[in-house]
């Protein structure tokens, strides 16, 4: 069985806000193809203040899908719909004290149901903006679709390229066979042949992006994101400081209670996820303690 956190179990065994909201004026229905789970989220939104007065869920799915749905309703009740739109799947996972990488899609499903419900409230058609594939890299929760897209878009040739662009394969390395299979497949579609012995073709630190940010723009945006995350870190007695940005790597200091905390790595992963969502480019967040190594290598 999965190693679920106590929080996941709490929300699974005693779900909050189960069932449909009476007189709901917003409904979102989404499913995750990778596991067949599905969720209906109903909201009662105050039409004057746009505050979510009530939220309810009905979920066909596993323990973490039910827990993600339950915690989502708790998070968004009392928020305005604009505030609610800023809730990321990482927020859902963080409220659950983490989810196994294979189960992160349950939190994604929660966020999508929320967006679908708000679109429904506004009389808009919700378009799903991402596709899910089989989980390839369990260390960084990267799926096949993400890797395929990156290989297509950035003309990647080697496993090392894939790791540089997506992080996939950068941990325990046991998924390298699967990544090679993806490279083989995509390159064959492009009429090329995968060369097992090829050297990485791209420099590791400056991947192409469609609208490249200048470093100053990037730093400003990163600061904005960190400011938005600061209140929740401070609530736990911690804080984060941006030390340096080199290329796509942001070096941060985790301070206060975050310093040396067992959860620091997870918090950093959460920050990175949010940065990538907001900046729309690949950002690697690294503890500033790692920077000295870089400098000494450069020197």
């Amino acid at each position, binding site marked *: 069985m999965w190693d679920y956190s106590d929080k996941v179990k709490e929300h699974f065994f005693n779900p909050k806000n189960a*069932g449909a909201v009476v007189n709901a004026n917003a409904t979102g*229905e989404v499913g995750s193809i990778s*596991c*067949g789970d*599905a969720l209906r989220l109903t909201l009662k939104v105050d039409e004057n203040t746009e505050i979510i007065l009530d939220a309810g869920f009905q*979920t066909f799915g596993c323990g973490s899908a039910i827990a993600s749905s339950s915690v989502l309703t708790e998070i968004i009740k009392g928020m305005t719909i604009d505030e609610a739109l800023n809730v990321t799947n990482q927020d859902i996972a963080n409220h659950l004290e983490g989810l196994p990488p294979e189960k992160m899609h349950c939190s994604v499903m929660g966020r999508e149901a929320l967006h679908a419900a708000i679109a429904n409230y506004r009389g808009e058609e*919700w378009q799903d903006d991402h596709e899910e594939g089989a989980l390839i890299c369990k260390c960084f929760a990267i799926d096949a679709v993400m890797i395929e897209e990156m290989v297509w878009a950035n003309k990647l040739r080697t496993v090392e390229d894939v790791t540089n662009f997506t992080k996939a394969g950068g941990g325990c390395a046991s998924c390298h066979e699967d990544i090679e299979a993806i490279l083989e497949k995509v390159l064959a579609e492009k009429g090329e042949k995968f060369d097992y012995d090829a050297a990485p073709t791209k420099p590791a630190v400056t991947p192409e992006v469609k609208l490249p940010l200048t470093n100053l723009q990037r730093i400003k945006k990163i600061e904005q994101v960190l400011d938005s995350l600061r209140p929740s870190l401070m609530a736990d007695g911690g804080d984060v400081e941006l030390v340096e940005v080199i290329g796509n790597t942001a070096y941060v200091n985790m301070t206060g209670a975050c310093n040396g905390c067992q959860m620091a790595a997870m918090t950093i992963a959460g920050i990175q996820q949010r940065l990538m969502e907001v900046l729309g480019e690949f950002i690697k967040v690294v503890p500033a303690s790692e920077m000295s190594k870089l400098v000494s290598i450069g020197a």
Partner: protein
Amino acid sequence: MTAIYLDNNATTKVDRAVVDAMIPYFLEQYGNPSSIHSFADGVAKGLKHARQHVQALIGCEHDSEIIFTSCGTEANTTAILSAIKAQPNKKEIITTTVEHPAILAVCEALEKDGYTIHRMPVDRAGRLNLDAYKKLLSDHVALVTVMWANNETGTIFPVAAMAELAHAAGVMFHTDAVQAVGKIPMMLQDTKIDMLSISGHKLHAPKGIGVLYLRRGTRYRPLLRGGHQERGRRAGTENTAAIIGLGKACELALEHIEYENTHVKAMRDRLERGITEQISHCFITGDMNNRLPNTTDIAFEYIEGEAILMLLNKAGIAASSGSACTSGSLEPSHVMRAMDIPYTAAHGTIRFSFSRYNTLHEVDEVLKVMPSVVATLRKLSPYWEGEGPVVHPEQAFKPTFA
């Protein structure tokens, strides 16, 4: 309440008598069976006895047809790779869509190397079409590999008849029998089965021991070379204690085979009847008339298996599910998909698998808990309203799938 273990197709408790038989081979007779001294002089005899107990359980002609391996998966891999290496001009393999991954993944890898894999489909009850099978048999086929009994539903395939057909066509026949051995009687010497895989931990022996049965005269190429062990067919120092344990387990299994097909079957049937009578919108999957005596796989519609298992676990009951979310890969059960079970039911399948250690009292305990587990989750389900599914559930709830 003591916990109730109904997941015996996943693995079994090691019988106390098996543990007792093994202990001297850790502490006293721990010598290498190849050595000539007092620490090893009883080992060869012990191994021979173990081999004879395996032989008796599967009813094969010679004890030298038993090759000890590290597990069922090794036996399966050895069988497939041996068949293709020994017959390099044959480039096709026949198997089924519902095999264990230990077969399917090897076939998939061979497909990349240019082999043609024929995966026979099953019908809604999990049965094969033998006419279609006959048409696939040809000189190009290196091996037929078909499981004796399905691990999820317990459905039994007619492997003896299929082996006859393969033999008549000059094709080698292997069966993955890890779920069947010890649960149903078998007499291999009366069949044309060339190779058969056994896994010790499915029949109250420890994990880490398996068997490949290799009919005398079957062309063979070892997977592991580098030693004379198992007559050069599986190199590597023998896992002596585990082999002794497997021998004891096979002896016990043979003694209990009637109990398995009467008492164990009665417990399974009682659970099945109790659940289907008490709970609406659930059904048994697989071939009802042709199943292992210890297995039942029940689909609970409109709810999801992992959630059921978590609630059962809280009540001290261990079972397993064909749901996507319980496997490490998130792939929904390929067996349920192969049987074309609708998705709102396939995700809610729960497998209860018994052993001779279970009791009728445990069955009644499960029957007390199950209705409320299902009701709790259906209350959360978008497909359910009040006492039954919503009208036209598939239309009432149509999520956008990512």
